[in-house]
């Protein structure tokens, strides 16, 4: 299968802290990859670099053979890579519906040309196609009952879902989820991931997700990449990586000692 996203030797330091010491990952189209590692291992830094929020100190990032390491997040989004956030990034004073409509408005603008060209047309919310797309998204993620509620008043799990829904609304080719189930209660986390993976499957897109919860990782990620102190400890089939000695010691082991079992440690 073709490699859709390829990073080579990514490096990033913040003063004395090395967040990335040569990260090379090749992701195949339509695959699902889980990124694991303890806090501070460099997973989110990696995601921030791939999505353009941080510039790598060295190394390349290729998306479909195009070098994207110098691009802004907005350009990278337009090219087809979207992400969700560890802490949901929403428009807090706007309703769920309005959040999605804004996202659609931007998407349409990117697809259909300049904003000025829409000067004398009606607001996106009045466009039936936009409304339909927003409704579909809300239905898919179980957000319909929260349609008119302001984002800041939503329960945490719902905020996460909205965050992910907004990322998916651009129908990206690559979707990166940063800790999709952190802060979500144990009984909800599978429901959320099921919803997300269903939505993704109907789009056909490549998924990378960062997770601490090993139950989620084992259930949804055929391939796992383990981070540790800015380096990749192991990269391969889930069963292999998770049973790797070093990974057990430095990643899962480290996580396990915080509680009595893997399912206790699912929060960032």
């Amino acid at each position, binding site marked *: 299968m073709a490699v859709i996203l390829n990073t080579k030797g990514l490096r990033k330091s913040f003063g004395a802290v090395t967040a990335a010491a040569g990260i090379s990952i090749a992701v195949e189209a339509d695959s699902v990859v889980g990124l694991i590692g303890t806090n501070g291992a460099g997973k989110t830094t990696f995601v921030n670099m791939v*999505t353009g929020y941080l510039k790598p100190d060295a190394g390349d990032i290729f998306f479909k053979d195009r070098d994207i390491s110098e691009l*802004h*997040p*907005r*350009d990278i*989004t*337009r090219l087809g890579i*979207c*992400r969700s956030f560890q802490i949901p*990034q*929403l*428009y*807090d*004073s*706007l309703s769920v*519906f*309005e959040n999605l409509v*804004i*996202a659609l*408005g*931007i*998407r*349409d*603008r*990117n697809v259909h040309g300049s*904003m*000025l060209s*829409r*000067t*004398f*047309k*009606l*607001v*996106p*919310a*009045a466009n*039936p196609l936009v*409304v339909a797309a927003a409704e579909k998204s809300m239905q898919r993620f179980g957000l319909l009952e929260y349609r008119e509620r*302001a984002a800041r008043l939503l329960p945490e799990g719902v905020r996460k879902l909205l965050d992910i829904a*907004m990322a998916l609304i*651009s129908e990206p080719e690559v979707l990166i989820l940063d800790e999709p189930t952190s802060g979500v209660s144990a009984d909800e986390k599978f429901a959320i991931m099921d919803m997300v993976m269903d939505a993704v499957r109907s789009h056909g897109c490549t998924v990378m997700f960062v997770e601490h919860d090993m139950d989620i990782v084992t259930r949804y990620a055929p391939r796992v990449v383990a981070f540790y102190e800015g380096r990749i400890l192991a990269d391969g089939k889930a069963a292999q990586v998770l049973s790797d000695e070093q990974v057990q010691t430095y990643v899962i082991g480290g996580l396990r000692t915080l509680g009595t079992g893997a399912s206790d440690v699912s929060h960032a």
Partner: protein
Amino acid sequence: MTHTDKTPFILLLALVVLLALGPFLPNWLFLLTMSLGKGLVVLGLVVLLRTGLVSFGQGLYYCVGAYAVGSLSQFASVKNALLLLLAGTLVSAILATILGFLLANYRGIFFAMLTLALSMIVYGLLVKTSALGSTDGFNVAPASLLGKVISGQRNQYPMFALACIVAFVAAVLTNSYLWTALGQLSSAIRDNEIRVEYMGASVRSAIHTKYVLAGALAGLGGAVTALAIGHIDPEMAYWTTSGEFVFVAILGGTGSVIAPFLGAIIFEFIRTYAYQYSPNTWQLVLGTAMLLVIIFLPAGLWSAFARLRRRT
């Protein structure tokens, strides 16, 4: 949430009413014209306010627009009122585009104080420029339109009518802008810029555009004022002038393009009478009123900074 926006119709109605009633209210025409001019500046401020930005320096463009009109009429003998208004707007827009490159990098307090500083620089420049009359400013030669003399104290109706029409057009256009995808981006930018960038839009260029629009509107307002009063001076760029615009913007709220004009009219009327009775307490009254609005009408103020409730 599908609906048609009734604002253009309300504006049209207001225009017709004003134009019809005008000849019967000769004593109020000047005040109304001034209010419309200031309302234009406040309209620009509201565009910025919806994005969460408070400019304490709109007086800069108000003044530049006025001085453009004054200079052209006095030194280049341009008499056509429409041309003068256009010139005022254009010069301000160009200046706003240039300054916008710096200002679009800032938010909150920085943005507010930088705009203030910039307007004070212009004030200082004008005060030191004797060719432009220093602190006294200079007079604006009467302009004309379609053969009729517009400015002047004798018949104020033509100027009033011109102001009404100009304000109407500006309000309708601004309203349309606010309903486009870029216009709607204001609340999103105010709430979460990172998310906006990650959705694929440039926050910086959106803010730059809004700043230019605000500058252009302020310039137009200044041009109208210059023609109406027939005199301009550097005081227009002083920060207290800008502060008054901010006050009216907050009072009126950001919910509609009509609010700036209504607010400006009420403000001008109150100010005229307050000044007559007690010039030394005007700022006291203004400041207290502002505090009362901030404390007791948090929804009014809140709609500027937090929640934008659009009514059908």
